[in-house]
């Protein structure tokens, strides 16, 4: 890589083509970790007020985190086939890229979590 030259996305990019799907898979994993961590923090912080049932919600959050990680891993395989010229299972040029359904689901779930958080914040007694 030329010192000081910014990475390009063209076909002569110094960044190996397989790196981009992997970076995206890692981003999904980071998101899964954020969901897991957020669930645990929320449960821990809300337990004095709501009692032990919060840990059921934390469990649901952890399940959601697993779902996010799994969805990301599955997408990474589809992306790799669509994008990576050096992948051994490379299909025909123009192999379809994954659609946006898991993204819509993720955004919707976070939106619902946000609504729940608003209820919690407004319902929590202030001292």
């Amino acid at each position: 890589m030329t010192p000081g030259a910014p990475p390009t996305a063209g076909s002569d990019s110094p960044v190996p083509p397989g790196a981009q799907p992997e970076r995206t898979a890692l981003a999904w994993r980071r998101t899964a970790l954020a969901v897991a961590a957020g669930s645990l923090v929320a449960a821990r912080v809300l337990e004095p007020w709501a009692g032990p049932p919060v840990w059921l919600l934390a469990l649901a959050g952890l399940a959601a985190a697993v779902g996010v990680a799994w969805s990301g891993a599955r997408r990474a395989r589809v992306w790799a086939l669509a994008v990576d010229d050096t992948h051994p299972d490379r299909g025909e040029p123009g192999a379809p890229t994954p659609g946006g359904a898991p993204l819509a689901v993720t955004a919707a779930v976070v939106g619902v979590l946000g609504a729940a958080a608003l209820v919690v914040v407004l319902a929590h007694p202030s001292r």
Partner: protein
Amino acid sequence: MSADRTPTPPDRRFPRAVFARGSEPDGRFSLANERTFLAWVRTALALLAGGVALEALDLPVEPHLRLAAAVLLVVLGIVAPVQAWSGWTRTERALRERRPLPAPVLSGPLAVGVAVAGLLVLIGLLVR
């Protein structure tokens, strides 16, 4: 490539409003778009966790200011996934149609909102 390859199956990717338009962009740009979406999702989670923690923890902050800051953070955390999805669809469409990419609408308000929430907490700490 054989001359009698099987025809490509019809495109059924969701949402049609994005994939029915334009043509396949460089996959690396779409991947970058997807990572941006996920970054907004993580931002939303952090805002929600921050808002909930602010209100649920016994912090020595004036209660009304603390509640205002918490609500502000949670509201930003509710709008962030809207930005995540809206930004992703608009950007993916622009990539497919080789148009300039849209700017993220929520960036400015988010920065202002977080600063205001921080200010409210700071004042609440001093006033308490």
